């Protein structure tokens, strides 16, 4: 058969096109192979820095908790501390001097030598030093001196006894307790925030801004080599996308704030919904220095008028605990023996009338655009309307919210906080010395100042517990805040992930984890 040159070219082109089509479709149809023990975690957003003295974001803590260690660590199943870089400690009878014996033979990542007492001294002093401009300088303001008393022994002297001192030295938020390498920070300077050196189970490998942070296993970790070979943290802000990425297998773990999205995943073939205790409180803070909220009857009326059950069961699908006050039921010193405010609109109206507002009043709440807060506030608005309180809702993004909530004219603020388990951390925000600007006592409450100070310095557990009981009773009378609920950690996890439990401070502790 004679084939013309043009025909040959045409046939060749057709074959070429077919080959290209075939190979590309095979290429596209092959799923990207994920190597075993290669875990992908959604941290939701870009962080600020991986330097423990610098960052304030949860997103950084999620990563850093796996790179760094501190003197103590919370147990995975309770809020008790266990030794980590410290092996044992002694406190002097006056509660002012702590001596820590340190773990020996711990290696810094990437050949930065051995961990010693000098690193502890350096880390604490670095946070304290105003030059560092650390947001956590306050945490160690009470530390008078850190002294190296041996290669593996360090002594810390406090200005006055501090019941929460050990928790400040723990892997938790705030991150100030994470120990950094003196040699690495000195050598890397500001660069330490983007190439952190720790002693934890995973070693920092690379960070691609807005795309991923990759950690690899540290075979020399002092509690043994982790089972996972690699962890990739990705920043998926949109929770719908994050859940789809879990369904497709691109991501293994994510925290979800919009709990309504979780219903679909309750009985999923590939995914589990898991919850965990979260020392957190979401509440409406009332400005006790401004009318009408300077009147305790108005504040009590607010508490009677708001139906927290409806919020928890309706909007939060039950993924939250019912509160009795600011202190979480799992915190040290919690008591349920306080005045309660069951939903009672009639009583609220009576109290309002007694306070001189028989027809209610107008007010405004400042709210951060976050999770389910808008829906929660819309429900609260409807509940308050029933007793004549007309509450406008001002939804703001973070920068604007931070400014608006501290203003003197602001009457109501929707506020939420997740903190370490000691009650002192949350109570500090109700001390009058922490009123804005510069502090978070947004209700400008001053009714328990004396007790907060006693509680923070009392070293006797029984006495301390009594103090916090008294605080809760007084606050239940004064109602500087209507506590709406205690949220839980709500996460969706691929069923192939083994050994994973929710880290109670909101991070991801991935040392015990493996993939089937």
């Amino acid at each position, binding site marked *: 058969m004679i084939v013309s040159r043009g025909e040959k070219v045409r046939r060749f082109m057709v074959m070429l096109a077919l080959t290209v089509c075939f190979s590309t479709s095979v290429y596209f149809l092959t799923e990207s192979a994920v190597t075993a023990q290669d875990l992908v975690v959604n941290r939701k957003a870009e962080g600020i820095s991986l330097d423990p003295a610098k960052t304030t974001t949860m997103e950084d803590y999620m990563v850093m908790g796996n790179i760094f260690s501190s003197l103590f660590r919370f147990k995975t199943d309770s809020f008790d501390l266990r030794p980590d870089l410290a092996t044992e400690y002694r406190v002097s009878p006056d509660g002012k001097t702590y001596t820590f014996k340190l773990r020996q033979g711990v290696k810094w990542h990437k050949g930065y030598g051995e961990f010693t007492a000098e690193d502890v001294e350096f880390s604490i002093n670095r946070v304290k030093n*105003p030059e560092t*401009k650390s*947001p956590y300088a306050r945490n160690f303001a009470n530390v008078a001196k850190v002294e190296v008393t041996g290669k593996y022994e360090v002594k810390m002297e406090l200005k006055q006894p501090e019941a929460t001192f050990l928790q400040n030295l723990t892997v938790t938020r705030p991150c100030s307790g994470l120990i950094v390498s003196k040699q690495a920070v000195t050598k890397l300077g500001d660069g330490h925030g983007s190439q952190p050196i720790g002693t934890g189970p995973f070693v920092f490998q690379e960070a691609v801004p807005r795309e991923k942070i990759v950690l690899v296993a540290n075979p020399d970790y002092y509690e043994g080599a982790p089972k996972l070979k690699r962890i990739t943290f990705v920043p*998926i*802000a949109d929770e719908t996308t994050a859940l789809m990425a879990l369904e497709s297998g691109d991501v293994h773990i994510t925290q979800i704030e919009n709990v309504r999205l979780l219903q679909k995943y309750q009985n999923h073939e590939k995914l589990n919904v898991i919850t965990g205790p979260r020392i957190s409180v979401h509440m409406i803070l009332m400005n006790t220095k401004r009318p009408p909220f300077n009147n305790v009857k108005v504040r009590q009326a607010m508490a009677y008028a708001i139906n927290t059950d409806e919020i928890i069961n309706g909007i939060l699908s039950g993924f939250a605990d019912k509160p009795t006050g600011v202190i979480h039921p799992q915190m040290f010193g919690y008591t349920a023996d306080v005045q309660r405010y069951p939903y009672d609109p009639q009583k609220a109206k009576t109290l309002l009338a007694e306070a001189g507002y028989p027809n209610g009043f107008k007010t405004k709440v400042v709210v951060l655009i976050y999770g389910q807060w808008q829906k929660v506030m819309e429900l609260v608005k409807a509940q308050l309307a029933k007793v004549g309180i007309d509450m406008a809702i001002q939804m703001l993004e973070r920068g604007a919210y931070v400014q608006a909530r501290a203003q003197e004219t602001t009457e109501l603020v929707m506020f939420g906080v997740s903190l370490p388990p000691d009650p002192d951390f949350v109570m500090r925000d109700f001390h009058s010395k922490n009123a804005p600007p510069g502090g978070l006592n947004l209700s400008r409450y001053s009714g328990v100042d004396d007790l907060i100070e006693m509680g923070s310095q009392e070293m006797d557990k029984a006495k301390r517990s009594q103090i916090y009981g008294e605080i809760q009773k007084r606050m239940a009378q004064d109602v500087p805040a209507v506590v709406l609920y205690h949220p839980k950690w709500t996460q969706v996890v691929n069923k192939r992930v083994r050994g994973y439990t929710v880290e109670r401070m909101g991070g991801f502790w991935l040392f015990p984890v493996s993939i089937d």
Partner: protein
Amino acid sequence: MKTYLLRRLLMMIPTLLGIGTVVFIIIRLAPGNPAEILLGDYATPEAVALLKEKMGLDRPLYQQYGLYLWHLLQGDFGRSYVTNRLVLPEIIRHLPYTLELAGAAVLLSILIGLPAGMVSAVKRDTLFDRISMVAALFLASMPLFWLGILLMLFFSIKLGWFPLIGAGDPASIDALRYLILPSMALAGTPTALVARITRSSVLEIIEQDFIKVARAKGLEENRVVLKHVLKNAMIPVTTVIGLNMGQLLGGSVVIEMVFARPGLGKLLIDSIHGRDYFQVQGTVIIIASLFVVVNFLVDLTYSLFDPRIRYQ
């Protein structure tokens, strides 16, 4: 022509300075300041004051503005408050993801919209015409993020063909796999617009006398349509494509959030949240420059399609 080019290029300078000024003012009008946001809830007021001073935010506004302009004119966009990295390299790092995305979307909208519009016009009032115009209406009115989610559900979760999030390495062929779904989502609206504009402008041209002449002198119908009709119909179509580039850059912000792509849009959103003034200013100026340049190129292409348009 040369003077025209020069004049247009020079005109870009005041345009961009104007944009720079507007962004400078707007981002500072937004409540909240970078030092407070960066240091978080538990910082001491002293630390905040110290940081403000280091950031230069304690200076009067006119001084900040003067310094900013002075540095800008030297091509210095400043440093990010949050990462302390130089703004321009950061933008350049994120730029390829957005350019790839917008470029792929434009390409898709031309490849699909143009033939669809032409066939609709030539086969006016047939079933094809009806279906394609309803489809265009549907695409044009669909919110971007929703289209993105639908595509994800179908192609990533149901069929498992494409990765759902991220962007891959922009320099490798692998990036294509990551590009397909977001660019399809982003191409929805422009495809519909291109199809509709092509259809109406082809319909207009096809009635003109010179087309009748072309047919009368016995030209093949395909040649009539491709050579005479299409070329004349391209001017409004090009305008629409050019104007759409701006919308695509805006739309890429949404798509990058939905698909978690590390592009300019995501960079911009993050820096606005952190009140990262220099990063916001730099990013907006670069996006605006892209828009200005694209519009300029679109204006130039007019003369290719219609030789009567000559720039003096």
